[in-house]
């Protein structure tokens, strides 16, 4: 009997320790989180990223009038004004003109954990527990077609206003901000989707209609009460925070001004070269097939997108490409276009 009692004690201690760690993390970050309110209603959350009164929020949390009230856990009320927007990620810089918090503690952008990690998400309805799955996924933003690395997050909540929720690990460092939740496939008229609003908004690949009738349709995923969401990788968030903290308040995402796809023989074939962009200035033309970038072989369009994403504006990327039967090289200075729209 003693062994069962010991097992129970260890079991209870494990859960208690886990809950205590999460509660401790939330206590640490709670000082840096404000709940955004508009007309008395909670519309989202923002986190302090600079002690000068700069807050980070998601576009979905900002009402149209771009003026919102931030209320801290200690009851401090701050008027926040939208100062800059990053169109790629939808993150918004909020500025508190009369910021008088005593001993403000900005959040710190951490590195993504290497193993599945318990996290706490700061949402407009309070903290929500979840799990962070490691490993970058290939993400494509629409309509910009830009590549971004994403991480999957599973939240222990049903469909809830989690848009713009900030994710913190148990050390209290910020490791993500929720920008998307998993949606279902388009449904045929007459079919009932579990989350119809999402299924409709996700139908960019083909509007719901008779053409989709042959598709196997999946509505919702996961057990009831769990939300599968995606966050931008910390490398993206760190780039946004760095840009918002800069005097220009501009976020600089790397870009050379090209659109590209894969070819059957390998490589990334340029589908469009925007005029006046670094690629255009370097002499790249539509139809060129990039086969190597910075010494790394390019097998697909994703390989090329990953290389470009890893660059910082102002750096150069060495390309080897085919034009017809001729192989050429070019050195392109990466630009800082905020958007490719």
């Amino acid at each position, binding site marked *: 009997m003693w062994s069962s009692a010991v097992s129970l004690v260890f079991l209870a201690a494990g859960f208690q320790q886990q809950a205590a760690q999460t509660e401790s993390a939330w206590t640490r970050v709670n000082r840096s989180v404000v709940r955004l309110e508009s007309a008395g209603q909670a519309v989202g959350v923002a986190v302090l990223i600079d002690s000068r009164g700069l807050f980070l929020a998601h576009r979905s949390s900002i009402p149209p009038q771009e003026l919102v009230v931030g209320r801290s856990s200690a009851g401090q009320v701050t008027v926040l004004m939208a100062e800059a927007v990053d169109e790629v990620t939808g993150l918004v810089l909020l500025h508190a003109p009369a910021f008088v918090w005593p001993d403000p503690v900005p959040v710190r952008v951490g590195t993504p954990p290497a193993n599945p990690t318990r996290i706490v998400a700061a949402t407009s309805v309070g903290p929500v527990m979840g799990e962070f799955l490691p490993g970058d996924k290939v993400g*494509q933003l629409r309509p910009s077609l830009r590549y971004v690395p*994403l991480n999957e997050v599973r939240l222990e909540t049903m469909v809830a206003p989690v848009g713009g929720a900030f994710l913190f690990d148990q050390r209290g460092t910020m490791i993500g901000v929720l920008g998307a939740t998993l949606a279902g496939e388009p449904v045929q008229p007459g079919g009932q989707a579990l989350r119809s609003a999402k299924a409709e908004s996700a139908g960019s690949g083909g509007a719901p*209609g008779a053409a989709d009738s*042959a598709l196997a349709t999946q509505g*919702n995923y996961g057990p009831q009460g769990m939300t599968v969401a995606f966050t931008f990788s910390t490398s993206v968030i760190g780039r946004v925070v760095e840009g918002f903290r800069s005097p220009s308040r501009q976020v600089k995402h*790397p870009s050379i001004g090209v659109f590209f*796809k894969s070819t059957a023989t390998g490589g990334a074939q340029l589908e469009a070269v925007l005029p006046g962009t670094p690629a255009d200035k370097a002499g790249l033309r539509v139809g060129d097939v990039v086969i190597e970038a910075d010494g790394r072989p390019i097998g697909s369009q994703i390989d090329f997108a990953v290389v470009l994403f890893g660059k910082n504006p102002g750096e150069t990327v060495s390309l080897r490409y085919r034009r017809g039967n001729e192989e050429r090289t070019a050195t392109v200075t990466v630009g800082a276009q905020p958007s490719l729209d």
Partner: protein
Amino acid sequence: VSDRLFESAFDGAPEPERLSAPEAAELKALRALKADLAALREVPECQLTTEHLRRAILDQGVRPAAPRVPAWSRWLWAAPVAAVAAVALVLNRPRDVVPTVRELASAAPVESAGVPKTSAPLIVDGSGPAEPATVASATQPSTDGVARPERPRRRTTRRLAVQDGPLLAMREDASAATRTMGAASEAAPEEEPAIEQPEAVVVTEPADPATGTAAAQEVTISADVVFGG
């Protein structure tokens, strides 16, 4: 033998014959003990008499037989430990996503053998053509009208073709006929290239009003999908 050694040492009984070396040593120790007990005469009577102490020591020399315990009772602890281990295993099991699958009544029919095809419906909304017995064999019943597969399965992805990209929509006429062709090509697996297609997550605006987030879809990326950079 031990009792006779005690009697010989303490009660003056004759010494047993043919003592082994350990028995002789024990007898010698007992006699030394008796001598030590004799030295306890200085202890006050109000505290402990030597007779009481001697009798207590002699009583300890004859131990009562231990009660016989059944062999199976030694494993009684295993049952609660196993129960606790089972509870711990259930509570700490990995939270794998179990997809909730819903398909259309007008989708592909069910095979006569009762095993649904890959694209066969797992649940039928309304009065679909699938037989209830077949549905019950493939899924678990649910009170909310949604059926789940018996085993957790990985989320399936849909193939993302170039027709999904707005860049092509700018270049081509995004008519219904075009979209129909695109969807038809997606539904025909034999037209997919043989090479392994990478998976990706496509994030599409605008935001869902229910969650405030954009909609994400897991897809496989074909070679003709355009990226920007």
